[in-house]
């Protein structure tokens, strides 16, 4: 039994999918025309899909974002025209939860960096479930600095529960590694395009997401804390995660409204993994369009626009709430 809501829900579809496939096969093997039966089943299948996935709650989106079959960074990077991976932070080790290197996207040379979770248990262990250590963030900073020097646009894919919260990560100054990453992205003199493709977990996600253009998949999430963590701290009750998910405003629509996200990539009914090929193509198209547009700006214009963009975020307006304790 999976602890993923979406995976559980999909189990009901498997039987139907199998029957459709069987009928198709049978129909191809014999002269009998079964197209009406197949069409009927297809229709029912689509109706069930709509019922199951037609409108997802924030909590359901959290599970969709964590779906084990959801396309990961490497599924996107492998569709670049070329990719030459670069490794290591030059200090201590290579962190496999961040993948990065030179690439060609539609004949344009870029630097691509993505957070990589595992697609099975073994890979998850190797990649620390996509939770980067300081070494991963230092590799990221190194590659972003290199890109800035070589005038290569930076493309990032964000997919992490958050930065690794372990002993070694604290010993190697996780805070500093993320802080420097933010600084590097804030000052890079090249276009930066970030795509939130799965989970965007807090500061560990933001470290790769200060960008001139931020894309977000329809059912991805991006939040200040995980719903579970938020529930544990603010409600002292981890079972309130669903309520926390609703309150945190972590969906693409909410974040587009706040200006945290610039563009939403629509997903097929049932989620990106139901047609990964198409989702990856459309995401890369959108990335390419943004990079092309941003490449016409001078480094000074880029930096000014980036500064203004983040300067305005969470902009303050005159408030009604009176501070009780201040002397008037």
């Amino acid at each position, binding site marked *: 039994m999976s602890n993923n809501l979406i995976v559980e829900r999909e189990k009901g579809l498997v039987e139907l999918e199998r029957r459709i496939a069987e009928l198709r096969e049978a129909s191809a093997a014999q002269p009998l025309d079964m197209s009406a039966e197949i069409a009927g089943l297809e229709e029912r299948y689509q109706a069930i899909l709509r019922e199951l996935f037609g409108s997802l709650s924030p909590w359901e989106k959290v599970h969709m974002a964590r779906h084990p079959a959801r396309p990961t960074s490497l599924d996107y990077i492998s569709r670049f025209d070329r990719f030459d991976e670069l490794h290591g932070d030059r200090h201590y080790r290579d962190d496999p939860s961040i993948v990065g290197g030179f690439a060609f996207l539609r004949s344009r040379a870029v630097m691509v960096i993505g957070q990589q979770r595992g697609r099975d248990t073994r890979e998850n262990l190797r990649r620390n479930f996509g939770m980067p250590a300081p070494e991963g963030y230092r590799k990221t900073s190194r590659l972003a600095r290199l890109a800035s020097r070589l005038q290569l646009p930076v493309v990032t894919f964000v997919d992490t529960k958050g*930065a690794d*919260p*372990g*002993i070694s*990560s*604290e*010993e*190697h*100054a*996780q*805070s*500093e590694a*993320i*802080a*420097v990453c*933010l*600084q590097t992205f*804030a*000052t890079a003199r090249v276009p930066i395009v970030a795509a939130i493709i799965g989970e965007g977990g*807090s*500061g560990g996600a*933001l*470290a790769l997401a*200060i960008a001139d253009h931020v894309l977000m998949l329809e059912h991805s999430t*991006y*939040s*200040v*804390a995980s719903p579970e*963590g*938020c529930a544990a*701290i*603010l*409600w*002292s009750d981890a079972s*309130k995660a669903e309520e*926390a998910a609703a*309150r*945190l*405003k*972590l969906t693409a629509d909410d*974040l587009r409204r*706040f200006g*945290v996200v610039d563009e939403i990539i629509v997903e097929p009914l049932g989620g990106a993994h139901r047609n990964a090929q198409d989702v990856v193509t459309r995401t890369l198209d959108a990335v390419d369009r943004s990079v092309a547009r941003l490449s016409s700006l001078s480094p000074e214009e880029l930096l000014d626009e*980036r*500064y203004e963009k*983040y*300067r305005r*975020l*969470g*902009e*303050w*307006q005159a*408030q*009604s*709430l009176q*501070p*009780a*304790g*201040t*002397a008037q």
Partner: protein
Amino acid sequence: MMREWLPSRRARETPRNDAALWVKCPKCGEVLYRRDLAASLFVCTRCSYHFRMSAYDRIASIVDGDFTEIASEVLPSDPLQWSDKKSYQTKLKSDAENSGLSESVVCGFATIGRFPVALGVMDFHFRGGTMGRVTGERITRLFEEARRRKVPCIIFAASGGARMEEGMLALMQMAKTTAAVARFMEDGNFFLVVLTDPTTGGVAASFAFQADVIVAESKAMIGFAGRRVIEQTIRQRLPDQFQTAEFLLEKGAIDMVVDRRELKEKLVRLLEYAVREPVSP
């Protein structure tokens, strides 16, 4: 809008919970007369335990006597209409009453040992020092103004991280403050941070660890992830020393650990390297 800082009106700056005449040291159990404790800058006179300090006490302990607050008119609001066990508005109000503050940071300009500086002081007594939109806005304005004035900036950090009740808008303050700090530093200005107990999460992982020089107070707890989160992840108890200022010094993450009673003197010494012309008295 600037507002002159009036020490006399800020006499009740310490949180209500500490307002008793006698205070017990949580570390050694010594019962301390409150006035003696204040005189020793809220450091236990027996075991040197550093109590958490309120922002205005801190400012009084560091500046030469002048402090002009900025951005105090920027006040928090409730963008997500948040509510958990209590509503966010209720929490803001009660924190304001208990701390005498309107947000988790107080920003302004002052002189320290006759050096003009921009000063931002966070206070754990307001929402655990968490960074909301207004915390980020005040700090950003401080760095922007310090850049215009070409004066060093000193931040006293104390924070549980980004404020959950403001969602992603709080997290984005990491980006906003980072951008302002970067511009300030690129112009050749000096940024010094003092990490106080505790400094964690989104504040540690943004402006706090971007400083040129990082000072920490004795025994301050400093880290990215909270102790409980790490213990739950690794399923074992962490050693007491883990994530203390002394631990970070040994690991190479910070420049020095300083006893609060020697802090002002140390800051003035450090400013001498960055500023060559103190203002005349």
